[in-house]
């Protein structure tokens, strides 16, 4: 039982401590208030400094250009390239006339510019940014309406020269167009003759929306970054710092339970994280407003709307969503930082953990910045990415899409937060974490220890290792297998069955107990079989719902159909899709992994975690759409395994469940069994049962599940062995 008064006392004191800490105050309050106005001023100044320097262009052979005739009424004369003073290009050839001052031209008849070799070295020496060589016969060629070519020499290794070249290209294109236009008018042909198609941009986004889309990319990223930074420093201070200053032990000996201490500290970190994120965003918003109003006073260039769009603040509604989503995100970061920070013995060691934490979080936070990465069923589940993508969608004003994914983002991030918090509490209960001495890590000694001091059943860390081994095995084995029915079988045996069996044999003293290889009671077998039968109609309904919510891409659908062609007949289908998964997956998830989790967690947590791992495995190795069914079945299989102390009822359940799917498919597609399938299914193509069958079976399975849950042990099983091989009277020294 958590006494909230204790949590409150710890929270208030920790918060007061943090508010009295100059470093925290600076990081959380002062820095954002000062930083962004400074950045704003800096940006304004920088943009002045970045006013582009005029580039120097040398034109060799100015005198060859057709005579200048701006005032000429002669419609057939081509427009001039230069303005009358011959120090700049003709301003009308630029998109915005002011741009002509950004290119200073020099008419230089020096023969040095005409020789390609000296021209090159002069350019490389930076004497000019680009050189135009006007051919001597230009006027005559133009008059004959033949193509002229104007060499433009530049140095692509020099960025300024490169930019100058691009501008000149643009300019010459415009000159080209102007000449064509001139000729069209002269020949009296209609506009469409030379310029038949023209695009007309019609942007339906309002200026605020355009602004939103720019904010929508940047804001979620910044929010994530700030929430993480805001959580990290206080976490290190109130965990590692408390150890370092010697107050941790005192707190642990107080009557406050570990959960109360962790919650109190967690709330403090959460507060700091949210305060940091909100203050930063607030300050940034105000700076942006100020910048925007400064810009709006400036004379606008037509293409400057992008700048205003960037500086238009997001709407109040998106701001609300931002804060609402910040809470679970900050909670996840706070719990994660807390669990990491308690591992550290000192503040200094705590700082070391920052790099791996950022390496983990930043790529996830950066994903939404990548164009084309959008909310979908998979990205929604990623710990940080889901939230920032949802924020992006909300800020773009796409509320229908956001509503569709809201729960799918919120529920996982809350689960990740809870799991991290639970991890933090576990860390606080661990003697080796709290009283960690500086020990030398000795790899050989550690290996010796692994084999010498084998535990009877594996630890939670080994469960995770087993899961990762399965993924790694898949990664390495998959490329070597051909696409055939039997490679599917080999894959399941090597990837799913291999790691848990090998680990159980190598690293535990009791592989039989670890893998639950006990003869089951007949009653348990019977119940598993009944439950599998009763649950199946609901399972197939769920499958269809999930498919409707998260439709499979067509390519995946085709790949699946291709997979079906691999399987020649029904017995092979049973072997590959029912018998093999039932055995392999049960050994792995209800055998090794659940036993391992059971040693460290209460049964409810152990079942939930193993079911989540089971679900993730299906996402990673197979289809995202299987996540929900696999997790749900994982929970029920976990219940069965813990109640029966045996793996076999679970195998039976799994076998029946998968066989029913195969059988239902076979019956509904077989024209000979039309009568039977009409009696069973209301929708033959999807093999959906008649509603009465679904309801009755579901009600029956609910009764069975309630009975199962009722017999569940509430507390962690007392370890069947002493925590260490040493007991009273056994003296080892």
């Amino acid at each position, binding site marked *: 039982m958590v006494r909230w008064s*204790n949590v409150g*006392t710890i929270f208030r004191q920790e918060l007061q401590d943090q508010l009295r800490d100059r470093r925290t105050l600076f990081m959380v309050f002062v820095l954002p208030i000062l930083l962004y106005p400074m950045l704003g001023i800096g940006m304004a100044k920088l943009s002045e400094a970045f006013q582009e320097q005029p580039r120097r262009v040398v034109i060799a052979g100015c005198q060859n250009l057709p005579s200048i005739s701006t005032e000429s009424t002669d419609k057939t004369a081509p427009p001039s390239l230069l303005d009358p003073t011959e120090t700049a290009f003709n301003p009308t050839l630029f998109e915005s006339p002011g741009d002509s001052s950004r290119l200073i031209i020099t008419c230089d008849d020096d023969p040095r510019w005409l020789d390609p070799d000296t021209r090159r070295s002069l350019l490389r020496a930076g004497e000019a940014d680009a050189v135009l060589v006007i051919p001597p016969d230009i006027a005559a060629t133009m008059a004959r309406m033949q193509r002229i070519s104007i060499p433009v020499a530049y140095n692509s290794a020099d960025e300024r020269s490169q930019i100058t070249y691009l501008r000149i290209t643009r300019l010459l294109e415009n000159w080209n167009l102007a000449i064509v236009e001139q000729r069209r008018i002269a020949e009296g042909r209609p506009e469409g003759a030379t310029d038949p198609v023209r695009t007309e941009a019609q942007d339906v986004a309002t200026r605020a929306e355009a602004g939103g889309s720019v904010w929508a990319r940047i804001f979620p990223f910044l929010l994530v970054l700030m929430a993480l930074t805001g959580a990290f420093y206080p976490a290190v201070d109130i965990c590692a710092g408390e150890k370092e200053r*010697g107050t941790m032990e*005192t707190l642990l000996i107080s009557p406050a339970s570990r959960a109360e201490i962790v919650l109190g500290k967690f709330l403090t970190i959460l507060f700091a994280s949210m305060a940091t994120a909100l203050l930063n965003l607030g300050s940034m918003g105000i700076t942006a407003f100020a910048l925007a109003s400064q810009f709006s006073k400036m004379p606008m260039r037509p293409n400057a709307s992008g700048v205003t769009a960037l500086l238009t603040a997001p709407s109040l509604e998106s701001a609300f969503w931002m804060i609402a989503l910040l809470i679970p995100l900050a909670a996840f970061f706070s719990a994660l930082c807390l669990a990491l920070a308690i591992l550290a013995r000192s503040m200094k060691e705590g700082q070391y953990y920052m790099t791996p934490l950022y390496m983990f979080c930043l790529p996830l936070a950066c994903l939404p910045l990548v164009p084309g990465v959008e909310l979908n069923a998979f990205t929604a589940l990623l710990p940080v990415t889901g939230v920032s993508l949802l924020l992006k969608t909300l800020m773009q004003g796409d509320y229908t899409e956001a509503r569709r994914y809201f729960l799918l983002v919120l529920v996982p991030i809350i689960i990740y937060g809870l799991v991290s918090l639970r991890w933090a509490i576990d860390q606080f209960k661990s003697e080796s974490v709290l009283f960690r001495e500086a020990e030398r890590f000795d790899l050989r*000694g550690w290996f010796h220890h692994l084999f010498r001091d084998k535990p009877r059943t594996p630890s939670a860390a080994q469960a995770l290792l087993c899961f990762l081994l399965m993924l790694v095995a898949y990664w390495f084995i998959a490329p070597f297998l051909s696409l055939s029915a039997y490679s599917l079988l080999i894959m399941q045996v090597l990837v799913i069955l291999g790691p848990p069996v090998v680990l159980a044999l190598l690293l535990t003293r009791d592989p039989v107990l670890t893998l639950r290889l006990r003869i089951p009671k007949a009653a348990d077998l019977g119940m598993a079989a009944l439950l599998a039968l009763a649950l199946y109609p609901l399972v197939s309904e769920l499958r269809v719902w999930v498919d409707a919510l998260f439709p499979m891409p067509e390519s995946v659908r085709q790949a699946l159909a291709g997979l079906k062609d691999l399987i020649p007949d029904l017995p092979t289908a049973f072997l590959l899709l029912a018998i093999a998964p039932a055995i392999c997956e049960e050994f792995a998830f209800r055998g090794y992994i659940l036993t391992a989790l059971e040693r460290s967690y209460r049964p409810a947590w152990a079942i939930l975690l193993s079911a989540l791992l089971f679900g993730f495995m299906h996402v990673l190795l197979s289809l995202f759409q299987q996540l929900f069914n696999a997790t749900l079945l994982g929970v029920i299989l976990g219940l069965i395994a813990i109640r029966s102390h045996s793996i076999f009822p679970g195998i039976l359940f799994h076998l029946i469940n998968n066989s029913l799917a195969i059988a239902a498919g076979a019956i509904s597609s077989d024209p000979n069994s039309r009568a039977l399938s009409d009696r069973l299914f209301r929708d033959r193509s999807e093999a959906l049962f008649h509603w009465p069958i679904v309801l009755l079976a579901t009600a029956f399975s609910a009764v069975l599940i309630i009975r199962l849950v009722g017999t569940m042990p509430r507390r962690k099983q007392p370890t069947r062995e002493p925590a260490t091989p040493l*007991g009273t*009277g056994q*003296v080892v020294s």
Partner: protein
Amino acid sequence: MIQVEHLTKAFLDYRRGWVPAVDDVTFSCQPGEIFGLLGPNGAGKTTTLRMLSTVLKPTGGVARVAGFDVVRYPEKVRESIGFMSAGTGIYERRTAWELVEFFGRLYQMSPDRLRSRMETIFDWLQMNDFRDVMGAKLSTGMRQKVSIARTIIHDPPVLIFDEPTSGLDVLVARSLRQRILELRDQGKTIVFSSHDMNEVAKLCARVGIIHKGRLRALGEPAELLDRFGQPDLEELFFHLVRIDGDISTVRPFDPAL
């Protein structure tokens, strides 16, 4: 009161396997008595006392504090003890008053009782001059007083002092011992560990001498000196350690260690 029977704690060491830090230790302590745990650094004193204060779980044996088993009722045990050690830090960003108040609240004391108790303790320890001074600015002696106040704020029947005087100057250590004697006279059950033989001789009615995790001798100081024929506790201690050393030299040399 405190009852410790066959208490054992082993830690896992990657190279040596399970190594006992405390091995089969048995002693008891009654109300109004100070029991001294005497031993060099690393003997297992701190590990024993941490098991009594429930932050470490024993790997064998039984310990009851104020009638509660430390494994089965750790919360009850924590409510009944005050624990203080040399390593006990104080919060640098809290004042003396806030720190004591904080722990009082964690002991679920009512505001009125907490306030009157704090006034009494601050008077008794003469802490009123620095009650609003931040922890970071307190001198060592003041910090010790804050720690004592924190230890006894909830008026626990059992007090555990783990080398409280180590690193203190003579005056502060002496005043601390004086306070501990006064607490004993109030009827508290007190366990006091130290590596200082003279200190233990001055304070404790009974002592246990611990070395390499095992209790080598247990009894009243005078009776122990008689039994082993030694002039004082220090000589007694060396005597006991020497016996132990003789045993260890008999052990065959193991190049793997």
